[in-house]
């Protein structure tokens, strides 16, 4: 078998992560967690808060740098066969679970093939391309695909494929296993205590397989439900790190200017949070492409970016984020142009009915954004009504297609096949979920290209196809693209190497250290 060997980027990562200063060991890092996670068992729950804490406890085979190139994690090196069907991973030596048991390739097989197949919908979709997962020996695991699935190497991140201890879960009822409340992983930190409503306490894994790491002794995640209080927690020195999205946007400039405070927008490249407004293509006024175009051009997104998001993030140009692979910058223009919007509205079937607009119930910024959007739309001749809901109500209305316009944002997971196609392909139109092709976009030609692009092993071919796809979708305009959201991480400047990968703080704090 001819193998294309991919050189691990260890050296590069170490060089960029370690400037002139040598890392110092010791210290306690205090962060906030918002909202409180439902569980820390990452095989069962993968929402943002869970991943942020459990990303210290669990690991996967790979990590990704800020250009989304794979880096070693539990796998120290890996090979991909030239036909793109066989992925061989060589695991790190001397890795143990937090309870002292040895970690082996059988844990990987159990996690991916048994546990996550049952519990993880996002990975389940990827595993459809996997024919077999086998442990060749204790330190080698081979994934064999049925078809050359292009983005496969991008799915070995801890939130997507967390490796679960086989000796604890095999043969049990996964959801009700008592050990779910005391998670056991291979990660740099061990679970110590979770006082619900107050804090989650992790301690250094002394037996971590990388010598000297982690540098921190202890990590506390403080549960602080109120946004203003989270800002106070940082100001009074109780916490050292405010991760992206943990304080209201209008507080970001003020907090950024505090002494000894550093801000970074890095660490979101893998997720690429991309916001847009769902438009109901199924029925009603938004079923008409001209109405949709009128909406798109009526939106003053520049204003929203500057006034509501403090200039953090950037304008989206289409369905793919600029940090995602195969991004095409030269798509047809979707710029703010009220004149053009009025023209499209003129040509459309819209007859003055009131549009129902659902803001995203995630705090003040989103509420204001919906109000500004309503104003934009009224100015070009729409009549718009804001519909207030809580999160559960929003989920249900969007899932039931009971809206005309609805704000949302989704992660892109670094590759169009993983995080973008799902909201535009016809096979993903199904009532009952707010995260599939809710808009109801149908274009069989584009669907065929999505399939082809996902199953191509050649990056050049994929780029060509994705460029065509992006151009066509922007032309059809099934949704109104808004912003690539910027989620700044605010932290004390003496906390170093907090964000070293494209997954940011969710990737665990194994490299973080405090300068004393």
């Amino acid at each position, binding site marked *: 078998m001819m193998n294309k060997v991919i050189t691990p980027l260890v050296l590069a990562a170490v060089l960029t992560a370690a400037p002139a200063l040598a890392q110092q060991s010791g210290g306690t890092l205090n962060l906030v967690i918002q909202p409180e996670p439902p569980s820390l068992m990452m095989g069962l729950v993968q929402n943002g808060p869970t991943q942020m804490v459990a990303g210290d406890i669990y690991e996967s085979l790979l990590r990704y740098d800020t250009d989304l190139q794979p880096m070693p994690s539990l796998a120290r090196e890996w090979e991909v066969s030239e036909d793109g069907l066989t992925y061989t991973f060589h695991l790190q030596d001397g890795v143990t679970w937090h309870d002292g048991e040895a970690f082996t390739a059988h844990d990987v097989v159990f996690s991916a093939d048994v546990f996550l197949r049952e519990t993880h919908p996002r990975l389940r979709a990827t595993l459809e391309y996997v024919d077999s997962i086998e442990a060749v020996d204790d330190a080698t695991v081979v994934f064999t695909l049925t078809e050359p699935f292009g983005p496969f190497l991008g799915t070995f991140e801890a939130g997507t494929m967390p490796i679960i201890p086989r000796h604890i879960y095999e043969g049990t009822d996964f959801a009700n296993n008592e050990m779910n*409340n005391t998670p056991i992983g291979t990660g740099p930190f061990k679970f110590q205590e979770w006082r619900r409503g107050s804090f989650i306490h992790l301690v250094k894994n002394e037996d971590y397989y990388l010598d000297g790491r982690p540098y921190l002794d202890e990590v506390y995640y403080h549960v602080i439900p109120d946004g203003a209080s989270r800002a106070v927690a940082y100001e009074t020195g109780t916490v050292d790190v405010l991760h992206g999205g943990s304080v209201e946007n209008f507080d970001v400039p003020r907090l950024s200017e505090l002494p000894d405070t550093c801000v970074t927008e890095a660490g979101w490249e893998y997720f690429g949070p991309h916001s847009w407004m769902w438009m109901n293509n199924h029925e009603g006024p938004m079923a008409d492409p001209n109405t949709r175009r009128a909406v798109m051009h009526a939106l003053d997104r520049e204003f929203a970016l500057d006034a509501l998001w403090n200039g953090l993030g950037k304008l989206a140009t289409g369905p793919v984020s600029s940090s995602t692979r195969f991004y095409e910058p030269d798509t047809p223009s979707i710029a703010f142009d009220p004149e053009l919007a009025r023209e499209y509205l003129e040509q459309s079937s819209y007859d003055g009915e009131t549009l129902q607009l659902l803001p995203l119930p995630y705090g003040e910024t989103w509420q204001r954004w919906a109000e500004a959007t309503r104003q934009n739309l009224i100015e070009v001749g729409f009549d718009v009504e804001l519909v207030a809901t809580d999160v559960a109500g929003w989920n249900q209305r969007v899932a039931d297609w009971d809206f005309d316009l609805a704000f949302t944002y989704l992660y892109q997971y670094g590759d169009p096949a993983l995080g973008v196609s799902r909201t535009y392909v016809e096979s993903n139109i199904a009532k009952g*979920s707010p995260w599939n092709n809710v808009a109801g976009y149908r274009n069989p030609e584009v669907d065929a290209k999505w399939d082809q692009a996902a199953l191509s092993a050649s990056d050049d071919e994929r780029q060509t196809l994705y460029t065509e796809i992006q151009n066509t979708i922007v032309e059809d305009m099934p949704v109104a693209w808004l912003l690539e959201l910027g989620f700044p991480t605010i932290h004390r400047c003496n906390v170093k190497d907090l964000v070293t990968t494209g997954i940011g703080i969710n990737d665990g704090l194994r490299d973080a250290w405090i300068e004393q």
Partner: protein
Amino acid sequence: MSVIRFILARLVKGAVILLAILVLNFLLIHAAPGDPAAVMAGEAGATDEQFIADLRARFGLDQPLSTQLWLYIKGAIQLDLGYSYRQGMPVADLIWDRLPATLLLTMSAFVLSIMLGVAAGVLAASRQGGWGDTIISTVAMIFYATPLFWIALMASLLFSVVLGWLPGFGYETIGANYTGMARVLDIGRHLILPATTLGLFFTAVYMRMTRASMLEVSRLDFVKTARAKGLRPGIIQRRHILRNALLPVITLAGLQAGQIVGGAVLTETVFAWPGIGRLMFEAISQRDYNVLLGVFFVSAAMVLLFNLITDILYVIVDPRIRIGS
């Protein structure tokens, strides 16, 4: 009617009311849009039909509503409040974990507001029309009219951020691992801002109530008689006026006491106090039905209990009131 019989009768009545509350809450919650499976699926950011179906089966949401209700009532009668699939814990454990923090907070606020409110009311009444009265009444009016969350934010801004005297949130210093007296003092320091904030509104209410009631009673004939008998003003104030003036205050205290279990959602949220009010609030937004019903169940039971205690207190304070009549 004997006291024992009265209490027994009230307990039976209470049980029936509790059951009615339970059914009503159950139906109201299930009438709200969205369910826990949809919320959890939503938080995961990606789903397929199998995932939602699995969750629904775990939550028991695939059963008809009447079956769910019957199962819940059957459990509640045996004091089994069910299981929170979302949190992976029995509801009773969740509530039990959070109850002490809430009781500490609300009881402190309760005691603080009664003592401060009654004292200020007595003081204001005895100086009716004077500058002392004016100051006390004005301050009380401000606390009465200002929204709680604003006071909470301002208090934490002033005492925590600007002055740095008191911790602005939390139950204790996380990571300090204090024990014994040091821990008690630490929790006490954390308690000051939330308890004061929570207590201010009722302090103002008690103050106004006590003041008005004192002034009213002091004009009654038996007070004039007492004065004519030449009793010392202090004794008249305490034994004759205050004791009679306290009845409406007790009624109000009964109301506030009813909120001791669940009435601190806002304060607990702003001050990150790990209590039951927040548990309830989170359960609402997550449609965690069992947790929500459990909290409602416990707080409704508490309201009934405190009503009973209030009624008994009436008799102790004013023996002319007859039990059960």
